[in-house]
């Protein structure tokens, strides 16, 4: 089996790795790069816990082959905070108790950030439909929607 050498960028840093052709980007992030923030909840694109951005697009990393990361820019949960300064979304999630077990939280934060970059003033319905691919079993989504709205408001004012 021939391994593939990949050179890519993760959260702004140049990164190289080798992988098997059938490895997913999620596998590589977690098992080779030590970035365990993205989670495998289903492996089939149905839960969104593995959400990352790939060249600015929100995607499920379990549905991307690691080989496809060549030359791309990848954004993961580990890149949201800058140093010890949390992103407004991260702070809002803590303030609004928008997480309980927290397993879906990295995926939801990456997804919410992608939304607000496109649509800084979404309605609740727009948030809900954008996040439909991020399953949460603990919160019932209520406080998540409130936290995203609060962060959006703070980001618009900044």
């Amino acid at each position: 089996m021939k391994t593939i050498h990949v050179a890519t960028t993760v959260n702004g840093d140049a990164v190289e790795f080798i992988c098997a052709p059938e490895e997913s980007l999620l596998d590589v992030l977690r098992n080779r790069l030590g970035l365990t923030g993205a989670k495998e909840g289903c492996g089939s694109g149905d839960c969104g816990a593995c959400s990352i951005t790939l060249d600015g697009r929100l995607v499920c990393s379990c549905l991307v082959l690691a080989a496809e990361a060549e030359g791309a820019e990848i954004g993961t949960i580990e890149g949201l905070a800058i140093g010890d300064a949390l992103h407004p979304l991260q702070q809002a999630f803590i303030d609004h108790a928008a997480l309980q077990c927290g397993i879906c939280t990295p995926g939801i934060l990456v997804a919410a950030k992608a939304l607000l970059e496109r649509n800084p003033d979404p309605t609740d319905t727009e948030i809900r439909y954008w996040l439909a691919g991020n399953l949460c079993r603990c919160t019932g989504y209520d406080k998540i929607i409130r936290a995203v709205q609060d962060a959006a408001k703070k980001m618009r004012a900044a």
Partner: protein
Amino acid sequence: MALDPTGKRIFKVVGTRPPRPDGIDKVTGRALYGADVSAPGMLVGRILRSPHPHATIVAIDTSAALALAGVKAVVTAADFAPQTDPTLRDIQDNCMARGTVLYDGHAVAAVAATTAAIARAALKLIKVTYAPLPHVTDVDAAMRADAPVVQAGRALESVPAGMPDNVTHRCEFGHGDLDAAFGGADLIVARSFTTAATHQGYIEPHACLASMTGDGKGDLWCCTQGQFNVRTICAALLGIEASQLRVTASEIGGGFGGKTNVFIEPVALALARKSGRPVKIVMARDEVFRATGPTVSSSIDVKIGMTKSGRITAAEADLRYSGGAFPCLTIEMGAQAAFAAYDLAAVRTIGWNVLTNRPKEAAYRAPGAPQAIYAVESVIDEACQKLGLDPLEVRLINAAKKGTKSSYGPTFDDIGLLATLNAAKAHPHYRAPLGPHQGRGLSAGFWFNFGGNTCVSLNVNTDGTVGVTEGNPDIGGSRAAISQMAAEELGIPYAQVRTMIADTASLGYNDVTDGSRVTFAVGLATIKAAQDATRKMCARAARIWGIDPEAVEWVDGAAVPAGPNAGKFPPLTLAEIAAVSFQTGGPIAGHHEFNADGAGVSFGVHLCDVEVDPETGATKVLRYTVFQDAGRAVHPAYVEGQMQGGAVQGIGWALNEEYIYGPDGRLQNAGFLDYRVPVASDLPMIEAVILEIPNPGHPYGVRGVGETPIVPPLAAVSNAVSRAIGVRMNRLPMSPPRVLAALGAKG
């Protein structure tokens, strides 16, 4: 401790909403869950599972798998010593089938290999010869005399002679003269219901990392609701002493009761022992659905007699539950919970457990109660409709209160049912107008809540901060609530307390995180540990002042002389006492170990508005309000979170979630695509109204809250749909094809 003018305690920290201690780790992705750790030399473990719902294992040939380069160990049931205790034997047989496979997905063998790809290839090389047997997956079919026998000889003494082999338990609760009481009713409604099995649906699959040294010491990292329980079971299954196995609970990505058991952990330990290397096993999503612990499936008959003024004269239920292929006692809780909300002179519930070729049941928030209460609340609603009575008024007329002899035996102390009903009645939701094709449903609900074995250790650091060590994985924000209670009792700021969850080597035994017990029991232990610490700090102050320890008391975070005769000394704060602790006798700690009782039951009432598309049967939830008695809401945001999360799980259960088995006995929807949990766009905001009727069994009045919220939604949604379409629904889930068929049958 400050008191208000009526003498009631004023809380400074309890009842506020401070940030949780694990919040930053979780929003940055730093928090470590079950699958997030690795070890040097680690092997990947994978499990081979039966494709048959019922079969004899004729032979297992692992030789080709063992010969594959990179495979370091293969285990089967032969690697586990047989257990004499039936409970442990069932757990072991469930983790690795011995002689017979009992459900589609039942584990038959496992491998550990150097890579995931080799492990997958090795599984394909294991040759299992099966002799398929007839199977049964439906609970009523399994109760028939001619049903395929899932396991023989498992019936408890409770089962009358002559019943089919699959019936393993019968229970009965109630009191009063039913025949006479039905005779006094103006209306009798009798209905039958069925509910499909559902799954907790936690987003984190089971995962663990196990290692064992050559001298029999084991280390296990796993996502679990109870590391001490895991230790007990794994030690027994591996044949080692509990003290030789250290189990550390990772952060947990959801449990809801489904992670109170073991599935992969003994297998990982066995592979680690055999290979001499650490072994990581992570379940794939389809394995989670096929081979962990869904709820029971149920078939229920309910009969209720009501006078035309709304008083329930008599109530009766026959509940048939199936907890899968192994005996299950969840029926006891369902049968007891069924009529618990009501003050009834004549009531009887009879419950049965029946074996089916399905995975072994595990708890899912309030196990057994949602199904039973769904049926009861549906019949009450139907009676209200037929008699033209307001469903909320009828609940008020019949509600249990302090002094009511419950339908399951005990007499209630202070309870919050009337308060929640009255809050619902007063809420604008109850009076909001409804449009065409819309309906409003109401349901009451209940859970017992539990106490249990608990240990807490509270250490006072010399810098004036406090560390609380407890043993219950945090599935809902409990670390924050524990810190709040410690801070409250000690009289120090929340920010100075840090609560940690210990591994099994670092603390005494703690029952699993279940039964809504943590805020109640661990909180109670924390308060007692804090009181233990304050007693010790008062003794240190007494020593510093040269007075009798009895003359010192603890007030607002400091030791003070108790009364004018004790002497004039300025208060010594916790920080001041801590700073000199090494000179006054050594480090200061408080602790408490007990089996907590006095847990308070928690009642809830849910209101649900739906709109049903009459041409497609699709149901949209328009508005949802949860009313629940929390006793004392230590952290109101986390209490709301439990109410909202449980309500949404119940909505999913009512509308779309179900285990679908084909005639071949295989699970057809073992993934999130076709096991349909609610998504964000399916739901409105969930309003949470917290009532506080303090539990006399807890110093702050705390009641467990985590489980009750899943109980009312099933009937709240079903009653709403039934009223919206003018047809009584009696089967869950109410998926669109069923609703459309009901509309069609109505004509």
